[in-house]
């Protein structure tokens, strides 16, 4: 039998591995790109900026609704948060695998 601490660490590793998949899926589900506003003769026009085949491209969206603006703003904030958490989870996995490396199998 594994010790109590190793048992807890093994369980936490499983949790972190699951979470890694969840954050990757959550990032994929967010709308791609960010909005960029340009003011032309007092009117605000929007472009959707995103990477296509590694290159940054601008797609003209024109005038958009507040709801759409809010959607992209929220996605931007969540993307930053999810990326941060994904990085944290990857560090946890590395740490937990290191801690569990030994004679016993994880």
């Amino acid at each position: 039998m594994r010790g109590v601490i190793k048992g807890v660490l093994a369980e936490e590793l499983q949790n972190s591995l699951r979470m890694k998949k969840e954050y990757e899926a959550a990032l994929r589900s967010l709308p791609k790109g960010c909005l960029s506003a340009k003011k032309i003769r007092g009117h605000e026009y929007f472009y959707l900026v995103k990477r296509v085949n590694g290159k940054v491209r601008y797609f003209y969206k024109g005038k958009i609704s507040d709801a759409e603006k809010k959607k992209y703003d929220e996605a931007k904030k969540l993307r930053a948060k999810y990326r941060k958490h994904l990085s944290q989870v990857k560090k946890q996995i590395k740490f937990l695998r290191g801690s569990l490396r030994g004679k016993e199998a994880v």
Partner: protein
Amino acid sequence: MEKKQYDLCIEILRRFNKAGILDNFILIGSWCLYFYEEYFQDKEYTRRLSLMTRDIDFLIEHPRKIQQQVDIPELLKDLGFVTIFKGSKGYIKLDHPDLLLEFLVPEKGKGTDKPYPLPMLGMNAVTLRFLDFLTTNTIKIKLEDFYLTLPHPANFALHKLIIFQRRAREEKALKDRNAAVELLKILIDKDELATLKHALGSIPMKWQRKIIKGLELAEENGIIKLLNLSNSH
């Protein structure tokens, strides 16, 4: 425990309180051990119990009595929680690198392996046996400007003594057993033997027998003697 983990826990409680739903919940699981520090007013005692996981579990004693419509996944979304559907039955869990949040309700009647729906909260809950025992004697501790409900440490420890014997994984069982025994010793040291005896007396004989068996497995004959328990029960 890391400060950011504690801060996140407090932020969740703060939001539940602001949404008016915190009073419906009883915090259970290993996080109780951390908050018992407040109850015991003694940091040295609870240092002995501090093997905690990221799981934070909330028990809902009366799920049908919840009046407020609060979408919990939405309430916690900006903190970076992601909603997951665990297992084939679709239990909802909220995951964050620092905390894993889950809801539980006491199992009634024959029991079921299906999740208990909590439509008012946008969640569902796991139903488990013996949780009623945690609701019969609770304490409230003050955090900032609100109160958090926890099971009384006596009920918490005795409950752990019952459930560790039902754990499939041996190391998890050992963790529960150790926490229970340490907590019982703290309660005895703190002159709470009468509360312990009262909690024991309030439960069915069948459960009492399980507790005795748990203490025997832990080779804690001293505690059995102090609680005036014997196999003849």
